């Protein structure tokens, strides 16, 4: 067997089509994950009864099971649940009409939420208690203090972790190929099997993932510069 260098390029070009799908899965899951994660982190940080225990259970279960398991549980469990509910309520809805990518969005958001809650929590811990007291002392309400003073600083403090998570979810999104979503990895498999050139196709996929990752690294460096302008930063 010989390496077909020119086919790497052919595969590369074909894989470009799948980039939007991968990016959509990554963006949706990280964004929704952060909404879930922020809610969970706040509930745990401020020890909200019931919600904080529920949040802790959610985090330990999700972090205690693989991402692909979440995807499969949602993929097989959700349709059963929805169809049963639709039947009971007399709607004409069939779960088969749900696009595959929705399962990926949903399950990866749940996965990301658990990890994001710890990212947000570490950010909250980085904010000095005096900041909250100062906000109260000038007459702010709790939500005002949180939104205007605490969360922006927590966000800035967790930027390195956020970029870590973005990269993790970008690579994790490749698992969506198991439920027939054609993202970069699935596309590589298709290109590989139709041309019987596996190594070349996966090499092209690797290059694309790497390129996207470099993009995220650049963006996060810019964001750090922008949002951490106020800080001399760390121990240096």
């Amino acid at each position: 067997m010989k390496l077909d260098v020119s086919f790497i390029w052919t595969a590369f070009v074909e894989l470009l089509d799948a980039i939007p799908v991968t990016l959509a899965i990554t963006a949706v899951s990280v964004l929704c994950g952060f909404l879930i994660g922020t809610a969970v982190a706040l509930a745990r940080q401020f020890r909200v009864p019931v919600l904080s225990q529920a949040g802790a259970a959610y985090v330990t279960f999700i972090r205690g099971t693989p991402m692909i398991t979440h995807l499969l549980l949602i993929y097989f469990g959700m349709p059963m649940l929805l169809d049963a509910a639709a039947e009971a309520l007399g709607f004409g809805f069939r779960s088969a009409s749900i696009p595959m990518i929705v399962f990926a969005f949903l399950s990866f958001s749940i996965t990301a939420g658990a990890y994001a809650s710890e990212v947000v929590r570490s950010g909250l811990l980085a904010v000095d208690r005096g900041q909250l007291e100062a906000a109260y002392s000038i007459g702010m309400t709790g939500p005002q203090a949180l939104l205007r003073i605490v969360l922006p600083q927590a966000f800035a403090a967790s930027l390195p972790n956020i970029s870590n998570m973005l990269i993790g979810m970008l690579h994790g999104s490749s698992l969506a190929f198991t439920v027939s979503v054609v993202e970069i990895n699935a596309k590589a498999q298709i290109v590989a099997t139709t041309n019987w050139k596996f190594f070349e196709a996966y090499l092209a996929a690797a290059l694309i993932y790497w390129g996207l990752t470099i993009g995220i690294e650049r963006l996060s460096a810019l964001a750090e510069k922008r949002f951490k302008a106020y800080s001399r930063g760390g121990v240096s």
Partner: protein
Amino acid sequence: MIALSGIKKSFGKNEVLSGIDLKVNRGEVVAILGPSGSGKTTLLRCINYLEKPDSGVISIGDFKLNCRQHGKKDVHALRQKSAMVFQQYNLFRHKTALENVMEGLVVVRKVSKAEARERSIALLEKVGLGAKLNAYPSELSGGQQQRVGIARALALNPEVILFDEPTSALDPELVGEVLSVIRQIAEEGITMIIVTHEMGFAQEVANHVVFMDGGVIVEEGEPKQLFRYPKEERTQQFLKRITPEAGYSI
């Protein structure tokens, strides 16, 4: 006028304030002195409800709050009456000096941005920081940060400004610039309660001095009288220890 009556506060089994009564008249500058652990900072923080007293009544101006029964709105209303200057400055780290001063005006007092900006610039100029409007706290010295903190408190035009050991975290050479700003605003007739270890300053600026120990007010009175002729033995001991007679060398 500010009146505290029967303020009690415990942390666990440790009673920090055992029934404090204090009256402060409008325009008065009150200095609270006392050894560490005497409860003076806790008392100050109770007035702003950064600590919740176990019992007692706090009234500022025409607003009265019973610490045993009140809602969140009452606490919010009480906090609007006062402003705090912290020992560790506690400037909002992600905001510039100007934004720090504007924040309360815009968000809490709902003043328009343009007007808040104008008033904040005037206040920062007053505390001598007209050239540092756009500096972040991390770019300012301790003394400069504390002066921004004072401007932030002044901006709200509160009934009373509470100073919690405003110079304790400062290098000795920066203490003077902060004290002179406090002296200047004291002369303008703003009501202030200052917890401090600067005895000379307390004697010079305060109209009224309160000496606390063990969670109670041991003695209070005019500065001259209290510093020169303290009645209580505990006050005498304290003053002797912190203003030692000259005549020894290190």
